[in-house]
Structures are given as structure tokens and as C-alpha cells.
């Protein structure tokens, strides 16, 4: 008689998609639950399963959930906009920031005319940063501003301009 092995708990979304047995120490299982099949499907389509597993191992366990969620966000952005992905959203936000800084400068000049005090022009402690990309990785070889000029998929970018936690995973 064939021995009855204890029935394992349901496979994670990754192992289901990859059609393999989900082991107790499966690296994907904590982050790709079986009730979120599309999350892994998107990540797999853009990054590939073996890359994801290599990428996950690089960070400590306590940071992996955030990493997975950010990968899922990037994958979703790339699938919606295959040309620009998240970079399109960044370019759009950067343009919005530049416009806001311009508007704020004008408003402060206007206010200064009423108050007639020189210190009212951009000298407050809560001054808005003028260089939003001070921390952008150096040596990228291309500036995001060039994307701002060439972008032709911006109509779809508004969907990406949202809080990280608001992106539905289905």
C-alpha cells in the first residue's frame, strides 16, 4: 500500500506558477501568498524567478517584504508602460516638482511685495528643496530630464503616482 504522505499546505503563488513543490523553506512563500497569484506573475514576467530569488537573498530577511513589494510595484509599472516603467512616473513627478517650485517662488515674490520685507523671499526655515534629485545615482549615463522631454506615454503615468501601499495586489 502506498504510504500516505501528510498533505502539504498549499503551494505559494510562485511555486504554483512554476509548477513545483513548495518546500517549507521556500524563499518565495512568505512574500507571494497563494491568494495573490498576479503579484508573482508580474514580478516573474519582468524580473524572472531566478533573478528574484537571487535579489531576495541579497537583503536581510526583515527587509525582504519591502523589497518584494517594491519589485512588484516596478513590475506593474513596467508592464503598464513597457518603454519607461517607473522612470516615467519619476519624470512626471520631477516636472510637477519643478512647476511647484516655480509657483512657490512667484508666490513668495508676490507676498514680499505686500510685506515689503526682503527676508520673505525664500528665506524661511521650511524652504522647499531645490534639488529633488540630489541623491539620484551618479553615472547613470542619462538624465531623467531627457525622459521628461521625450515621454509619450505620460497619460498612463498618473496611475503610478500613488502611495506604495495603495497599489492593489490581485
Amino acid at each position, binding site marked *: 500500500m502506498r504510504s500516505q504522505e501528510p498533505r502539504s499546505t498549499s503551494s505559494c503563488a510562485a511555486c504554483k506558477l512554476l509548477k513545483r513543490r513548495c518546500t517549507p523553506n521556500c524563499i518565495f512563500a512568505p512574500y507571494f501568498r497563494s491568494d495573490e497569484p498576479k503579484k508573482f506573475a508580474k514580478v516573474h514576467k519582468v524580473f524572472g524567478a531566478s*533573478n528574484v530569488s537571487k535579489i531576495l537573498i541579497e537583503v536581510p530577511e526583515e527587509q525582504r517584504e*519591502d523589497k518584494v513589494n*517594491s519589485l512588484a510595484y*516596478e513590475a506593474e509599472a513596467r508592464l503598464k508602460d513597457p518603454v*519607461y516603467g517607473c522612470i516615467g512616473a519619476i519624470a512626471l513627478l520631477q516636472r510637477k516638482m519643478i512647476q511647484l517650485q516655480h509657483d*512657490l517662488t512667484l508666490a513668495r515674490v508676490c*507676498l514680499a511685495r505686500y510685506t515689503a520685507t526682503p527676508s520673505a523671499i525664500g528665506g524661511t526655515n521650511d524652504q*522647499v528643496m531645490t534639488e529633488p534629485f540630489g541623491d539620484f545615482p551618479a553615472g547613470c549615463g542619462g538624465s531623467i530630464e531627457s525622459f521628461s522631454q521625450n515621454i509619450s506615454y505620460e497619460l498612463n503615468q498618473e496611475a503610478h503616482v500613488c502611495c506604495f501601499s495603495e497599489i492593489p495586489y490581485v
Partner: protein
Amino acid sequence: MSSGRCAACRYLRRRCTGDCIFSPYFPSNNPQRFVSVHRIYGASNVSKLLQRLPPHLRAEAADSLYLEAQCRLQDPVYGSVGLIFQLQQQIHAAESQLVKTQAEIAVMKSQAQHPQARQAESDFSNLLLLQQFDNDANLSFSNQVSSGFN
């Protein structure tokens, strides 16, 4: 000829054909560009992504893949999403400041346009102060009187 291979084919150690999908976007003089992209996405995924696009959009796509890969290498946890968060926060702060400044302008404008109203407001404030003074003076007198009877 091996010297004609693109950065991708050199890295993957394969022959670079005339119709290589990588060669226009990963030239041999910038090997790091392909290494970054391959490390995050994998050559096969990059190839599929580029193949799905019309040729005139592939250069931009390759550039954006490279930028995203660089972001991810610099910030392994959040990648380019970290930049999006940062920008959203900065935008929120800038919008708040703009609203505040515009409100201040509105108040200043109103006061400048209606100096009579401003004078009336000032007179009313002065009247309130005077009444308060009177009340305090009467109270003090009452206290003196009442203390005098004790």
C-alpha cells in the same frame, strides 16, 4: 570578428549576429551598462522586453531599464520606488507651502484693498480693550470697597 561584439554578447560569450537585439543599445564601450541590466532583469527578460516593442522605442526602453537597474543596485530594498516616495513627499510639502503662501497673499490683498475695513477692525479691537480696562478697574474698586467692609 570578436571585436565587433556588443557588450551583451561579450558578457554572454556568444557570437554577436547582425540582428542582435542588444547591440544597438549595449555598445561594447560601456560594458557596465549591460552588466547592471542583466543583474536585475536577466538577459533573456531584457531581450523579450525589447522584442515586444517597436524598434523606434527600444532605445528609450533600454535607457529606462538601465536607470531602474542602477536605482535598484544603489538601493537594493526600494530601488526607483524609493525615489518616487521621496518625490511624493517633497511635492506634498511644496503644495502645503504654496497653499499657505497663497493664503497669506489673500489676507494681505484683502487688507490692502479695504483699508476702511482694516481701520474698523482696529477700532473694534481697541474698543474691546477699553471695555476690558473698565471692567478691571470696576472690579478693583469693588474689591477695595468690599475689603473695606471686612
